[in-house]
């Protein structure tokens, strides 16, 4: 009865879709810009858009074109979309992405979804503190796009379509407006119509196996009260499935390496020893299409990921106590860290993870390549 009451409450809340019209003081030089309207589930919670970069139709249109335009790279062959393909939830299917230099990069391509929620620090190691700050780093990185921002600005200013789009969106063409436009396009990449979302809205039921997996996902195991759990929710929030948004709560050491092999991770940003080896807990939205997994793409399948959490955890000084302690068998952790999930429980969790795939997001024309739909010269 208790649970039914709660489910009803959540369903009711989720049906209250917030239609967002953002009214902020526009600092655009153009006075006739139009603010984007979009819908977002109530359960996603609060979000903020920078006051100096209002989410306008014009800025999103410009950002979308820039995102798909290889002109942003030094050799005019690599666009943002090369490593962020819509059909793969804006990842690239590679363990480590490859840019203009042809050398594998240090990290796996991150999915771009629901970026207005979750951690406020971007990249696997949190080195950018805003989407605007994030946007320029790949453009300038010698191995990713290798561009010089002054040269790029000059190149863009020679193209009539961009002259018009920048004028309409920001009134000026410079590195700042390039970053702002890319950030705003990424803000519109909202996924909220997966089967899990539909379940939360009370529109569908999950299969028994998916529901079993959902319950395991949402539970930290406690053998004292016979509660079995996959421990996923300790790092991935219940509705967004991303890392947590406050400060660096969305970063964790999930036991991939021992002390000898531990990468810097968040330590590289904060220089706090407690942050060594911590990486961003990514969103699990569309996780079934974003393989391979982890910051270095070491796991090819979700089965490998679950096997890691179930039996492959390596100890290190900053390993989360929640991971060490999480065990579905009483007092078995002294030798080997393991969730000790049964095989059918692993299958159920993976089954639930598949309910996070949002087909309408993966095929939404508003997020697609405008060069293929004849829109760039609008």
């Amino acid at each position: 009865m208790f649970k039914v009451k709660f489910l009803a409450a959540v369903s009711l809340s989720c049906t209250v879709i917030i239609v967002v019209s953002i009214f902020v003081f526009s600092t655009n030089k153009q006075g006739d810009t139009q603010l984007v309207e979009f819908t977002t589930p109530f359960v996603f919670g609060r979000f903020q858009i920078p006051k100096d970069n209002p989410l306008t139709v014009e800025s999103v249109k410009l950002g979308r074109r820039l995102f798909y335009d290889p002109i942003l790279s030094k050799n005019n062959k690599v666009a943002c979309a090369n490593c962020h393909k819509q059909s793969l939830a804006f990842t690239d299917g590679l363990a480590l992405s490859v840019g203009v230099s042809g050398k594998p990069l240090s990290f796996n391509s991150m999915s771009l979804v629901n970026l207005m929620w979750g951690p406020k620090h971007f990249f696997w190691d949190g080195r950018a503190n805003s989407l605007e700050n994030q946007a320029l780093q790949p453009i300038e990185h010698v191995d990713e796009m290798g561009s010089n921002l002054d040269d790029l600005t000059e190149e863009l200013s020679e193209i009539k379509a961009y002259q018009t789009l920048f004028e309409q969106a920001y009134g000026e063409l410079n590195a700042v407006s390039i970053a702002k436009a890319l950030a705003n396009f990424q803000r519109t990449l909202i996924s909220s119509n997966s089967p899990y979302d539909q379940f939360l809205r009370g529109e569908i039921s999950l299969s028994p196996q998916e529901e079993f997996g959902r319950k395991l996902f949402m539970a930290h195991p406690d053998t004292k009260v016979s509660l079995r759990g996959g421990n996923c929710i300790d790092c991935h929030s219940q509705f967004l499935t991303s890392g947590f948004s406050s400060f660096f709560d969305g970063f964790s050491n999930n036991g991939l390496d021992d002390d000898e092999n531990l990468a810097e991770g968040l330590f590289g940003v904060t220089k706090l020893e407690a942050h060594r080896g911590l990486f961003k807990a990514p969103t699990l939205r569309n996780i079934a299409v974003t393989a391979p997994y982890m910051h270095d793409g070491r796991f090819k399948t979700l089965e490998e990921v679950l096997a890691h959490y179930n039996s492959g955890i390596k100890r290190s000084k900053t390993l989360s106590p929640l991971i060490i302690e999480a065990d579905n068998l009483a007092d078995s952790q002294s030798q080997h860290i393991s969730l000790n999930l049964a095989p059918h429980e692993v299958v159920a969790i993976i089954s639930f993870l598949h309910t996070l795939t949002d087909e309408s997001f993966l095929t939404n024309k508003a997020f697609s390549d405008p060069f293929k739909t004849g829109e760039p010269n609008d």
Partner: protein
Amino acid sequence: MIKPFKIVGLISVLLLISVAIVWHNTVPKQLTLRFYPFLGSQPLVLNNEKYHNPGGEGVFTIRDFQFFISNLVLRSKRNNYTELESYHLARFDVGKAYYEIVISEISVSDFQQLVFSIGIDSTANGTIVIAGDLDPNNRMAWNWQVGYKFLLLEGSLYSQMKQQPLVYHIGFNESYTRLKFPLNSTIVSNDGIIKLKVDILALFDQAEPIDMNEIPKVKFDPEDVAKIAKGFQHFISLM
């Protein structure tokens, strides 16, 4: 004989002084509740400081410590101030050694009692409402069927040549604890600050001290939760 104009002058001066005092005490200003974390007499130092297990052998470190303060009320004989959306997540890992709640535009001297709770009231704990620091997507949320952790304490215990994780996630409606503190002019500083001590050891160093070796983790077992939550009564005190 004192002349009438002198009496009038004296009365006027006294009146002015009285008005000034009343004005000073009632003019709205900022009140700050500042919480300082301790373990007994030692200030909390995350990660690097080791503290004695209050109920047994060994020492322990604290990696993460957060808790909810809620439903803040200031009471006087004449009126009460009740904070709206009063859910504050106190934490001590974001650049300051203390956590503070600032209440703007309030006549501080009137109030005789400060009241707030540790945890989340059952109404808010049973919903996914977003108010104050309540956020169903944050670290303190278990899931919508269980509610919030009221207090999160995580670290490591070093005892008998071994290290083991400490995980105390204390929630449940039964743990919600209302605390009351008397207020007077000596407690509120001139700049409107009330200092409070948060003593983590109070959760363990009770009439029957809790040995972290025996209870290194508390999550959903109601009896264990109640044992730790009993310490909420003495968890916070005026400094």
